[in-house]
């Protein structure tokens, strides 16, 4: 168990760096808009969705309607539907851990738990739980610290959010090397770029998801041919 805690912790180090800083930034913005440390704590504990929390600050300060809030959240977070679909098999038979594993499935946690592992199922689930929990703690700590001490920080942290992009790139590279069939990965990139160009950066995710799903469903035989090569 001790070994598992240690290895899970090491896996989360890149996320720790990113979450502490991004959470800190979130805490500062929240504080600057008149919402103090309790709001930071509650939002990071109960919403626990990085980019959406930044968007939520805008909704709060604008006093957005609840319908607008629900729709915006749906648009920004719809990609989580995809995570669920891919995690149904890995998270099967996870028992009591399951509700938390699903609740805490952020982009970054997904990145760390979706990677194929040779370990036994039970061990994998415990590790996934620890990774989810560690990441959640980093995120909450970052936002609380940001709300408390944000005004005291003077060094320039611009660009540190690239850590998340970098993490996604490393997972992309690892997945690419793990298989000979590159059609799914290429499809993900190509359809997203096309939809980004057509729909613009604020609304392209949902059209991308629809295109990708249609492509995989209708082109199943073509996609699976890539496996045979």
């Amino acid at each position: 168990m001790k070994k598992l805690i240690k290895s899970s912790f090491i896996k989360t180090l890149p996320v720790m760096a990113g979450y502490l800083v991004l959470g800190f930034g979130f805490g500062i913005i929240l504080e600057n808009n008149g919402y103090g440390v309790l709001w930071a704590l509650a939002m990071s504990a109960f919403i626990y969705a990085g980019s959406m929390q930044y968007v939520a600050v805008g909704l709060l300060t604008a006093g957005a309607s609840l319908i607008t809030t629900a729709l915006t959240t749906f648009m920004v977070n719809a990609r989580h539907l995809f995570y669920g679909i891919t995690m149904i098999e890995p998270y099967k038979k996870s028992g009591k851990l399951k509700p938390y594993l699903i609740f805490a499935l952020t982009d970054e946690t997904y990145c760390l738990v979706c990677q194929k592992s040779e370990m036994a199922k039970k061990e994998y689930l415990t590790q996934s739980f620890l990774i989810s929990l560690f990441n959640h703690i980093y995120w909450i700590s970052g936002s609380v610290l940001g709300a408390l001490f944000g005004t005291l920080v003077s060094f320039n942290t611009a660009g540190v959010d690239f850590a998340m992009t970098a993490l996604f790139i490393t997972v992309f590279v690892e997945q690419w090397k793990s298989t000979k069939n590159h059609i799914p990965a290429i499809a993900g990139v190509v359809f997203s770029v096309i939809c980004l160009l057509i729909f613009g950066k604020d609304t392209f995710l949902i059209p991308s998801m629809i295109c990708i799903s249609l492509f995989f469903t209708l082109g199943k035989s073509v996609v699976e041919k890539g496996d045979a090569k």
Partner: protein
Amino acid sequence: MNYTHSIAIVAVVALVTALLRFLPFIILNGKRKTPEIIVYMGKVLSFAIMGMLVVYCLKGISFSAPGSFLPELIAGAVVTLLHVAFKNTLISVVAGTLTYMFLIQFIF
């Protein structure tokens, strides 16, 4: 600030986010075996998602000025090359991020 309304907003964001995370498990779960098409989708989607996420992170770049795409391009290349070479996530992420910070703070 209207306290009640603010709390309601936070609650709605939390609920919709959780709903999106739980929905696939609620719909496709139960004791029965996962349908073959979902197993297939789960497998191929996991590759496509990561591509989509990378594009999502880089959505802000534009080719109007060198400073609005070169830092991402160079730092992204650093991450990719290091990761192909060493396969150590920490090294790739730290080096890539420092490169990016240096580029946007001092060069562009």
